[in-house]
């Protein structure tokens, strides 16, 4: 009886565990998207702050880009923004003592709301932001409302400065471009090398060499990414700096080189399996027709194994896209929007790793990083599903 219960428990454990991968993938989706979706419920204005202008100012709406230019003092006239012909005057709570003396502000700043109201209603060309708690009763200015961040804006905007004040800039575009660029170049380096090694392993090498080469490739896959990053930092970074005569060696190219080494084991293993799955009859038919071994390889075997080789390349890209530590350590972590490989850049995983620690829990920055995580997750998910589809196609062939 007792044994029966134990058996039931064990079988129950086995059956539940069978679904554990599916459950975890589902949980990842739920938690990532739950945090990320909060981003699109917020305006980019710093939380708890108001953005106001004078009542006579004809402008009702400003987008985050325009606001950034205003507060960076890149836009200095209302006219360029379609408003009146006057310079923009920025007014914040810190400036209050230049306009009002201590007795007017009052003890413990009790009169501050009045001062704010007074200054804004008197100055036509003013734009101001201040904490909501200082909002005067009977406010005589105009409160500007910002649109909520949209998914489209998030993907399209070219500036990533989530901690900018008073208006955050959350544009994922430069990060997405950098990530894809670094990964693609890594695969362009790794694919020919990996394919050559796979052909060598599958067709040319004798079994003695295979027994040496196989563990070497496994070891290459086993070296922790942080060690690759360290190696890159000490060896490849100065190397790249010297060769291209750059001010800094931490560039996209440096990242690509290391990522290429790291992607090699995946590419070699998958491509070798694909080459081995070519039916013997096909190979021998080609040889019997007088083709050389090499002709057979590139005219018969490679075309037959092409879906497997594609899978190898795509899986390699997937590995490179998600790689965090190498990107964090050797690509320079600069917030650049660039297509150049010889400049410091920053990838999505590196951004998450570098910034999550300093982002306050639940804030806009925090949620923006989770949104980046979602992008990363979706890219790798698509890659995996596509590779499964490729291998499924191969089986039915």
């Amino acid at each position, binding site marked *: 009886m007792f044994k029966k219960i134990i*058996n039931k428990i064990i079988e129950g454990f*086995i059956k539940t*565990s*069978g679904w*554990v*991968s*599916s459950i*975890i*993938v589902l*949980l*990842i989706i739920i*938690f*990532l998207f*739950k945090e990320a979706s909060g981003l699109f419920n917020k305006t980019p204005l710093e939380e708890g702050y108001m953005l106001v202008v004078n009542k006579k100012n004809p402008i009702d709406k400003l987008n985050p880009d325009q606001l950034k230019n205003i507060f960076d003092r890149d836009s200095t006239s209302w006219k360029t923004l379609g408003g009146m012909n006057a310079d923009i005057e920025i007014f914040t709570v810190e400036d209050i003592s230049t306009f009002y003396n201590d007795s007017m502000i009052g003890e413990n700043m009790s009169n501050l709301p009045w001062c704010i109201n007074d200054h804004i209603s008197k100055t036509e060309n003013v734009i101001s932001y201040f904490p909501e708690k200082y909002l005067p009763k009977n406010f005589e200015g105009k409160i500007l409302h910002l649109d909520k961040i949209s998914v489209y804006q998030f993907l399209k905007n070219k500036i990533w400065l989530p901690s900018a004040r008073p208006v955050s800039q959350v544009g994922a575009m430069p990060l997405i471009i950098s990530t894809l660029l670094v990964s693609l170049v890594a695969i362009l380096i790794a694919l020919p*090398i990996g394919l050559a*090694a796979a052909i*060598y*392993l599958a067709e040319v*090498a004798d079994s003695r060499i295979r027994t*040496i*080469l196989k*563990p*070497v490739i496994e*070891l*290459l896959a*086993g*070296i*922790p*990414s*942080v*060690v690759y*990053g*360290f*190696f890159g930092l*000490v060896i490849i970074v100065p190397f790249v700096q010297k060769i291209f005569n750059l001010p800094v060696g931490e560039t996209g190219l440096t990242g690509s080189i290391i990522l290429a*080494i790291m992607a090699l084991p995946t590419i070699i293993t998958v491509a070798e399996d694909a080459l081995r799955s070519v039916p013997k009859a096909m190979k021998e038919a080609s040889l019997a027709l007088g083709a*050389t*071994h*090499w*002709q057979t390889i590139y005219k018969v075997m490679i075309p037959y194994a092409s879906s497997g080789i594609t899978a190898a390349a795509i*899986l390699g890209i997937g590995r490179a*896209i*998600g*790689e*965090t*530590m190498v990107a*964090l*350590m050797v690509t320079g972590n600069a917030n650049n929007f660039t297509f150049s490989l010889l400049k410091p850049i920053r990838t999505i*995983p590196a951004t*998450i790793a570098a910034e*999550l620690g300093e982002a306050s829990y639940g804030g806009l920055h925090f949620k923006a*990083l*989770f949104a980046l*995580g979602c992008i*990363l997750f979706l890219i*790798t*998910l698509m*890659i*995996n599903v596509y590779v*499964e589809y490729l291998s499924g196609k191969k089986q039915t062939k």
Partner: protein
Amino acid sequence: MNKRLSQKIFFTLFRLISLMIVIVLFSILGFIIFNGAKSISWHFLTQMPTDGMTKGGIFPAIVGTLILVLGSMIFAFPVGVAAAIYMNEYVKEGPVKRFMRLMTSNLAGVPSIVFGLFGMALFVNQLHFGDSIIAGSLTLGLLALPVVIRTTEEALKQVDDSFRLASIGLGATKLQTIGKVTLPIAFPNIITGLILSIGRVSGETAPILFTVAAYFLPKLPHSIFDQVMALPYHLYVIATSGTNITESRPIAYGTALVLISIVLICNITASVIRNVLGKRNK
């Protein structure tokens, strides 16, 4: 003649490229071993870091990594083996099994930083574990899970069906067959998978960044809700953002060597088990 020549040229090229890969591996290993060996001493392995991590040892990081590996395996090994048993012994070929496989490979493809985000959202914040050994271990365990599932499934697949049929034929139940026949035969291969996932887990940095890793914590943890230092994170910190990067270089090399040694030992042990087993099965 011409086509023979081109074959020769290409095959030589492939041989050289393969040789180059071997050289790359050995230069990375050699670089770490050569530079790290100077730092390794009993003192280095057993002392706390001092002087802003420019002197002293890496003892708390070694202990931290061992605890995290142990913790992640306590979770991932039983669950992963059970999942593989279910997928290989219970479910019939068909859409359900294909779906489970797809999900396992999806999980294996999730970038480690996403595991870090997820671990932070679920374990650290939602379940209020805080930055702790338990949050870090569970996050690493999730990451190791698909590795354990895959290797166990491979191991179970290699068990000849005649063993199962014989056992069932003798009147054993399914569970008895799994426990007394299938698992013992597959056991060495399962252990190989376990060792390889230990190697993988011990080097992971991104998942522990926000779930457990401490920048500098020169004492040992008292409970599973404490933070710990860990070797990969320690290497990252002293290589990039320590108080004095040039002075702590020897420590960085030493840490990298210890980390690589763990991975090497795991890989070598795994291939020894595999080879011994391969011979025995012949």
